[in-house]
Structure formats: structure tokens, C-alpha cells
């Protein structure tokens, strides 16, 4: 009986205050794909994350080889997907820097590059 009480207490402690089960939002995939090349300049960058995001605290920046921003407008967030329009028109390497807040308040960030043209 004592063991059952201990197990029940630990379970209650673990669950105390738990509202939802979520986790760090990690980049699952992107389009254009991470580290890959596309023939023509994409009009939009799409990022898929492993968890739902808080739109107000999730953002992305895309820069060209000279460091100029080429993302055009505010990124849109729907669930775990973030999209931002691009005005990249020239061949070259573009760097994507993202910073997101998952709905459970964990922040994560990262960066990657993709190429336009061969």
C-alpha cells in the first residue's frame, strides 16, 4: 500500500499544473530545402517545425550574399508552419535565420542556406 501511495504521489507531482503536452519547436524541413539548390528564385520560403508556434514571437530573416534582406513582409504562421514571401531574383547563396517560440514558451533558433541557380 505504501508503494502505491508513493507512485501515486509521484504521478500527481509530475502532472501538477500540466495544461498541454508540447515541446521545443525544431526545424523539421524547409522549402527550398536546407542546403539544396533551386533553378529559379523562389517566391516564398516555407518552414515546417516540429511544434506549433506563437506567431507574435516567431520570425525569420533571409539575406543574400551581400547581407541584404530579401524577405518581403511579415512572416505568416499557421500552426507549425511559417511562410515568408521572398524577393530573391539573382542567382547566389541565401541565408535563412529563424527564431521561433513554441506554444509552450520554449524558444529555439537556427540558420541554414540554400542556393538559387547552379
Amino acid at each position, binding site marked *: 500500500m505504501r508503494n502505491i501511495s508513493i507512485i501515486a504521489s509521484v504521478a500527481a*507531482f*509530475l*502532472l*501538477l*499544473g*500540466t*495544461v*498541454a*503536452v*508540447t*515541446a*521545443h519547436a*525544431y*526545424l*523539421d*524541413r*524547409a522549402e527550398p*530545402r*536546407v*542546403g*539544396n539548390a533551386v533553378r529559379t528564385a523562389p517566391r516564398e520560403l516555407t518552414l515546417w517545425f*516540429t*511544434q506549433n508556434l*506563437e506567431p507574435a*514571437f516567431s*520570425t525569420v*530573416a533571409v*539575406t543574400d550574399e551581400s*547581407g541584404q*534582406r*530579401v*524577405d*518581403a*513582409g*511579415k*512572416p505568416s504562421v499557421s500552426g507549425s508552419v511559417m511562410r*515568408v514571401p521572398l524577393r530573391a531574383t539573382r542567382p547566389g*547563396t541565401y541565408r535563412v*535565420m529563424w*527564431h521561433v*517560440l513554441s506554444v*509552450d*514558451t*520554449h*524558444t*529555439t*533558433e*537556427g*540558420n*541554414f*542556406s540554400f542556393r538559387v541557380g547552379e
Partner: protein
Amino acid sequence: MPTRMVRAALAGLAIAIVPLANANAHCFVGGRFFPAMLATDDPCVADEMSSPTVQWNSANPNGREHDVGGDFAKRITENFGITVSSTWTRVRPPADSGTVGPSAYGFQNLVTTAQFQVLKDAPSELALLAGAIFSWGNSGAAGVGAVPWSTITPTFYFGKGFGGLPDSAGFMRAFAVTGQVGYEIPTTSFDLVSGNPVPQNLVWGTSLQFSMPYLRSSVIDLGLPDFINHLIPIVEGQFAAPVANKSGIDFVITGTVNPGVIWVGNYFQVGVEAIVPVNRASGTSIGAIAQLHLYLDDMFPRGIGRPLLGNAAPPMLPFGNASTPGRPPFGN
């Protein structure tokens, strides 16, 4: 068995057991995730639980050893945390030893660890951690090797990802290294039972890891199967050497090299490694270790998975959108 070999084997046993009690953190540094490791510790404080960790090793001079351990790590504040660890051990005498006797079993000494996060630098993927490991003497069973004296081991930990290398480095950017070095100080200098001095030991460990999740999210998406993209192949090494109060004790470095792999999910990870002794004093055959590790901060973000005191750092935007620029992008 000569006394000298027993001492060396006990040192090997100590390093085989202590790491069980210290694999404990969920560690994001920028785009880099350092998984909780099985033999050494990662460089972050977090709310985590390893249960169980099971191990088979040959470091015990009295026979083949089986361990089942668990540890629970809790942040007190955002940057300070404690870990409580316990390991149950069974030692079975080898069949060819001529020893006819029952297996010995019982708990190892209780271990608690206090750690402070010194640095987490996202752009350089660098994390630094300082801590102290307390092993409480007389809290375990002498029959399985638990010693009657306590030890304190001030320890420094680091982790460094190579994601900051130029793009031309390619796959190399998915590598990371971690390490820890500590100085083990016993609360006694002489073992009255065996009549031997109790040495102070330098203990250190390191890991080299290749992150498939990082490769996919930050270097190149190769379109590999999802299971592969969750793997982190890893090689860990853990070592110890007596450096003071070692009169009559040969200077023998004991340790193991552990190749293995960790599968990383959103809420837990599973790891398995081989345990390869570096010399005879460290063990006589290859062992194995496996661990289920739970990310309590992700499973219960509004309950036990957050610091007891204070609030987490408020979220912020590192840069605005293109039409309303905020702070400059990373690296500027």
C-alpha cells in the same frame, strides 16, 4: 588478485558507475541540440529524468556487474539545477573463478550533483557548465563496492558545435564535441579496512557526436528516412587517474571508450552504447549500456518541467520583419 590490481579495478569500477548518475540534461544552444549522454554529462542544466539506465560491465573485480539506475534533474532557477541519482547493482562471480557464492546486490552510494550554467552562446554553439558531484559515503551496500567515505568532485563541462564553420566545411558542421574534467576528493585519506590510502583522482570524459537532426535542419537535407534523421552517432570516452595520496598505487589510467547511437525524439530519447575497456585494469570484456531519457521540460512545460524559482527569460524577436526591421540578424 594482487592488491594493486584490485585498486586499479576499483578505480575503473568507480568511473563505470559515476557516469550513470550524471547523464541528465536537455540542451539547446542556438540551432544545436546536445543530447543527454550515457557515460558523460552534457553541458546544460535542465528538467530531465533518466529511467532506467541499464548497464553490463566487467570493471568490477568481483565479477560480472549488472546495473539499473535512474536520475532526476531539476532546475531550481533558470541557470541552477540539482540532480539526484541512484544505481542498483548486482555482481555475479565469474563461473571460472572457483568462487562458489551467491551474487551480491544492493544500491551504490547515493549521488547528488549541483550545476550552474555559466554560458550558452548561440552563435558559437558553445555551452559552459560548472558543478560539483557529491557521492554520499555509507549510503550504499558495501557488498557491491559502495565505499564508506564520501567524495566531492568539482567538475567543469563544455560543449561546442561546429555549425559556425563556413558552408564549405559541409558535413563537418554537423559534428560537436563535449567534455568534462573533475577532481575527485575523498573525505578520508586512508581506508582502515583494506589498509590502503584513498587517492584523489582526476576524472575526465569527452564525446564526439554527429547530429543527423542538425545536418538536416542546418547543413543539408538529403531526403533521408525520418528515423535516420533522428539519430546521433556518438563516441564517448571516460577516464580516471590517481594523482594525489597515491602512495603505493601505480599510476594507471583507467577508462572506457563507448561507441553508440542516440535516437532523439520530441519528448524522450533512447541511447545504446558498447563499453570498451581501454586496458585490463578497466575491465576484461566489452560491456553495454542503454538508457531511456525523458525531457520533463517538454513533457510538462507548465508543471514540473520549469524552474522552481523565478520565471524563464521573456521571449524576444532577434530581428524584425523586412518591412519593420528590428534588431539585426544573427552575426551582425
